[in-house]
């Protein structure tokens, strides 16, 4: 009398076996067992082929397209074999798609932005880019987002839509970079002498490119110093090391030549620059230690 009798299980099994046989079950099973591994293998081969011919990013996309198409084809074939009507499924999918579309606007926008990013190639995997306040190395350019690794080893995911909408700086696009250093010298210093010393610093640093020639221009007269822009060039891979070495050399040479690098300071004047600052003595200390008012001081 129980539901789960041996006879009922046997009957269920026989029904399933009949249905399976009638609907080309073995063919579908073979399709899944052989077809799916083949599709993934093909995707890998396509990825390697396009990576070798074009770039790793394009290889990745080509491989994924092959896999998605292959899996989709296998799924549709299997469903048709089992007797499902794809047309009605597609119809339902269409309606679901409209509903999904409204809900997935951002994802679709990211997807389309990703296509534009791949076509436009403002940067590639391995480049260092600045997006807003984030600086990092590009790990991948995917369908919905790009992935960065920051220099302190954090993982950052940025939606493709943000990349398309905002300014992106590719730091490593070109082979050489200019190192802009703001150097301030005291007003009393000789600008020509400082310029000559900076030229010698650039010449003596091996990683500093002799050409293009370093730019040395006076930017203006600052609040505490004469501001000079010292801008030599370096290969992009030597940028940080060269900047560090140059700053150290500039300091050492300026110290050796007696050129002052002033710190911010304010000079007080009493009203006339040429007159001494007036100081009025209000109290003086007697030998006994007691303070007494100075006559006529008003104290």
């Amino acid at each position, binding site marked *: 009398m129980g539901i789960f009798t041996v006879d009922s299980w046997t009957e269920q099994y026989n029904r399933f076996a009949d249905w399976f046989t009638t609907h080309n079950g073995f063919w579908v099973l073979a399709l899944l067992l052989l077809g799916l591994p083949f599709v993934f293998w093909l995707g890998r081969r396509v990825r390697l082929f396009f990576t070798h011919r074009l770039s790793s990013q394009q290889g990745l996309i080509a491989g994924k397209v092959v896999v998605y198409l292959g899996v989709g084809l296998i799924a549709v074939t299997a469903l048709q074999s089992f007797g499902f009507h794809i047309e009605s499924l597609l119809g339902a999918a269409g309606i679901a798609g409209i509903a999904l579309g409204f809900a997935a606007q951002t994802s679709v926008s990211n997807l389309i932005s990703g296509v534009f990013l791949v076509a436009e190639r403002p940067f590639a995997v391995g480049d260092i880019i600045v997006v807003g306040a984030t600086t990092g190395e590009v790990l991948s350019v995917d369908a919905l987002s790009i992935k960065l690794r920051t220099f302190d080893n954090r993982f950052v995911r940025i939606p493709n839509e943000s990349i398309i909408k905002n300014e992106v700086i590719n730091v490593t696009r070109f*082979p050489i970079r200019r190192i802009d250093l703001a150097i301030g010298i005291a007003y009393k210093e000789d600008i020509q002498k400082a310029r000559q010393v900076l030229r010698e610093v650039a010449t003596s640093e091996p990683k500093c490119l002799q050409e293009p020639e370093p730019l040395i221009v006076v930017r203006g007269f600052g609040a505490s110093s004469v501001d000079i822009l010292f801008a030599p060039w370096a290969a992009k891979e*030597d940028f940080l090391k060269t900047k560090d070495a140059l700053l150290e050399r500039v300091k050492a040479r300026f110290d050796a030549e007696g050129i002052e690098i002033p710190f911010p300071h304010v000079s007080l004047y009493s009203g006339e620059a040429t007159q001494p600052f007036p100081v009025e003595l209000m109290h003086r200390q007697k030998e006994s230690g007691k303070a007494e008012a100075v006559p006529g001081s008003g104290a």
Partner: protein
Amino acid sequence: MKSIAPEPVPAFGGKKSWGELPLPGAACEPLRIGQLNLWFKVLEGDLWHSWKHAQDGDPDSQTPAEDASWSRWALQEDKRRLRLLPVYPDRPVVVKTESPIMLSPRDSVQIYIRCPLWVRVELLNHSPVTVTEIPTVVLSNTWFGTTLEGDLCYWVSSGARREAQADPDRPFLAVCPILVRNRSEDDLKIEKVCLHVEWLSLFEKDGQLWSDLTRVTYHGKKRASEVEVNGKPSGRAAGARLVSLPRHPSKRELSVRTFAALKEIADFLHD
């Protein structure tokens, strides 16, 4: 890279810099080539080596500084000799002429460059094993090209000259002759030359090192210049003995960027 050694030279401390040397003992053996101070010693079955470039005014140093950085190479029983081989730098060199040279159409001119060499330290047996390569003179980096593309090169400050003078007292310099031919319709102003030394062979004659002849043919601003390296010593270096083959064998003729301030390659413009 296949190489053939110059004649054997005296052991450490001799004036000559290149050639085969027996391995030193545990005491530090100094060697000076150009600005380069090299020290070698053998300890615990390993070859230790250290080096430093002297600054202007530095005396020859017999011992390395206490904080000198040492490299260590495990010695096999059968490797008992060292060889110091002169080789070219690993990048092209850029040289400015002493003053710009104007070359009329269909004219040619020969100029000479003194290129500081590197030292390749090898352990010898059936096949040489390269231990290290070090420049004898510290050269500055420079860029030959535009800010968008170009070649990273070394800057040679000695200048390109119209006369070649052998200088056996400075065996770390190789004289590189360049023949420039103007096959365009315009005058060619030669201010600066980029020489791909990695394509050159090195020869030795009477204690002076020479390169093979480089022929550069200028075809105008819109075409890249043709560069041909003949692989043989010529002119004053005729009859010189081969010391080493090029780092990178070149094709017979190459279209490369050789002269400065010219946009030779049409840009593929893209966003």
